[in-house]
């Protein structure tokens, strides 16, 4: 399968990306790149992956027209139902693919980081399916606010390691997973959960997630009374669901909108909006927009949703931002929470808090969007968040 818009051989998307990793990991990154290129060119690999995506994950996921919200706001609003994928989020598209890759490389042990727990659950799932050992690093704060997902991972045989360092959230979980990998690289593959990290991870995760956008192209193709999207909206933490749905539409004229977490508000400094309010630097192995102070120390992010609580973003999004290939906006905790309630009560779908950021932007910009066909990537379901929403007085 040919790769559209590949990075350079040094893993650069424009000025972004690269491989800023300790030497110990470099041979593994090169091995992974070679293994991915060989697998991706192998029809046998795709046949195996596609069969699992169809029969195990339940792809293609449906596209659903949100009629009541459409009528209320005068928008032709659709949801790409990644929440209906097995395990309840788009994360599984990536983990199944990377677990197959690990198997192909002969690495019996898998590590992963997780924020909301969705990537951890999806990794534990793929490991259970393929019989791989699985260790998931999770910030202590997230272990507490996503207790249900911790138990799901354990049920599937994964070991969950609580990370107490730093802010004890996703950033620290990524760092700790990388430290594990430095020590175990000979028998371990790191299934990173988003389009972040050193090359080739941003490429691999994008290629595994672009199935979302490719399905949408077939599902809303302008034929048989079906519209074509004018606007595609997706939340951006690390940026894998958004890159997955944006990539096939790159340069197509469709308005691509990435919604970051404004947390308590951009001005408060407590947010996760790397693209809207950050600056270029190097975080977790790649050059990208990130939250940092003038000394280059990484600044802690904040978001009500664990999946957006991250001070960096995938390097290709940085290119998209600079080149205007997509536009990036931010939505506060309060607006996301309100949108979650709207979707639940109006469409009977409880979205993940992450995905609710996308709907909140649509609702806030309904006037601008009037008459347009808008697709929200409903990247995950909200069951994991219900306990926390209740705590916030929902």
């Amino acid at each position, binding site marked *: 399968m040919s790769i559209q818009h590949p990075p350079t051989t040094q893993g650069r998307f424009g000025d972004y990306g690269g*491989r800023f990793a300790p*030497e*110990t990991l470099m041979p593994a990154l090169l091995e992974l790149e070679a293994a991915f290129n060989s697998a991706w060119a192998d029809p046998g690999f795709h046949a195996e992956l596609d069969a699992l995506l169809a029969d195990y994950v339940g792809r293609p996921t449906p596209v659903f027209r949100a009629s009541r919200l459409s009528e209320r706001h005068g928008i032709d609003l659709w949801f790409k139902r990644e929440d209906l994928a097995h395990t309840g989020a788009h994360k599984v598209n990536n983990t199944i693919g990377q677990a197959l890759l690990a198997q192909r490389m002969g690495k019996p042990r898998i590590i992963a980081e997780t924020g909301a727990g969705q990537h951890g659950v999806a990794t534990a799932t793929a490991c259970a399916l393929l019989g791989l050992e699985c260790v998931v690093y999770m910030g202590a704060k997230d272990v507490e606010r996503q207790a249900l997902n911790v138990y799901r991972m354990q049920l599937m045989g994964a070991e969950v390691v609580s990370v107490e*360092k730093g802010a004890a959230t996703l950033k620290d979980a990524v760092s700790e997973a990388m*430290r594990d990998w430095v020590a175990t690289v000979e028998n371990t593959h790191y299934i990173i959960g988003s389009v972040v990290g050193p090359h080739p991870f941003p490429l691999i995760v994008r290629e595994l997630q672009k199935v979302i956008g490719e399905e949408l192209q077939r599902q809303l193709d302008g034929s048989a009374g079906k519209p074509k999207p004018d606007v595609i909206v997706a939340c951006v933490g690390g940026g894998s669901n958004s890159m997955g749905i944006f990539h096939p539409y790159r340069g197509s004229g469709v308005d691509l909108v990435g919604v970051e977490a404004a947390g308590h508000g951009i001005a408060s400094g407590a947010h996760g909006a790397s693209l809207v309010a950050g600056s270029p*630097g190097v975080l977790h192995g790649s050059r990208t927009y990130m939250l940092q102070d003038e000394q280059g*120390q990484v600044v802690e992010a904040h978001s009500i949703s664990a999946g957006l609580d991250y001070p960096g973003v995938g390097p290709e999004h940085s290119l998209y931002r600079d080149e205007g290939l997509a536009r990036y906006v931010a939505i506060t905790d309060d607006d996301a929470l309100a949108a979650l309630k709207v979707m639940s009560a109006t469409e009977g779908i409880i979205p993940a808090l992450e995905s609710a950021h996308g709907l909140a932007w649509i609702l806030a910009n309904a006037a601008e969007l009037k008459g347009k066909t808008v697709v929200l990537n409903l990247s995950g379901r909200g069951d994991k968040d219900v306990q926390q929403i209740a705590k916030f007085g929902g």
Partner: protein
Amino acid sequence: MADRFRQLFAEASAANRAVLLPYMTAGLPGPDTSLDMFKAMAAAGADGFEVGIPYSDPLMDGPTIHEAGLRAIAAGATVDSSLQLVEAIVAATAKPVVVMTYVNPILAIGVETFCERVARAGGSGLIVADLPAEESDEIAAACRAERIDLVLFVAPTTDDKRLAQVVARQPMFVYAVAELGVTGKRDRASSYAASVTRRIKAATDVPVVLGVGISNPAAAAAAAEVADGVIVGSALVRRVLDAANPKDAAAELSAAVAELATAMRRD
């Protein structure tokens, strides 16, 4: 300034000994007492220093150096204060200093400005833990312009082809990673120190310094048998973190460094 390490390695080699380069985080235990730690180590037999600029997210470092960095940052350490400390160390001890950091603080200040400041502070070179050879051209060029040198890494996982690419770049020394894993104390002897050093020595005359996981006199002695230099970090940093006060910390460091230096004598 890079010449100072060349001279140090040449002298040590002539005396048939390996050099001891303690690592210490700048700004520990506090801004006003950090220099005392280096003075104590210099008096106890350190040949030079690796001075760590505290960083919030040190991927190559284990819990001890991570904790040290966060503590120093909380106590007010910055890149500027760390480089001022380097200047003071060079002035007070006359020992050569290599500055250790990560890519992001260098980019935040600007590659050229950062290297210029290291040189002005009297630093001899730069160790950047998340900078593999492939990404090193820009920083290496800025170092050359300031007559300081970049140190590059060879790990147990580095194959001979990569090793050749690393040494072809003529680093000030090769930082040979003695363990699979991040920095930090190990209870057992290094499994890779001898083999990785032998492979590098077969490929180059550039000095080889072993580091990562060398945490006691026995391990330092074994490393000194094969390499041109030895870096001991976390085991020393831990003593400063755990000391009741700066005076105790300096005394602990003095004793530990003296013990390491004695153990490293080849006789």
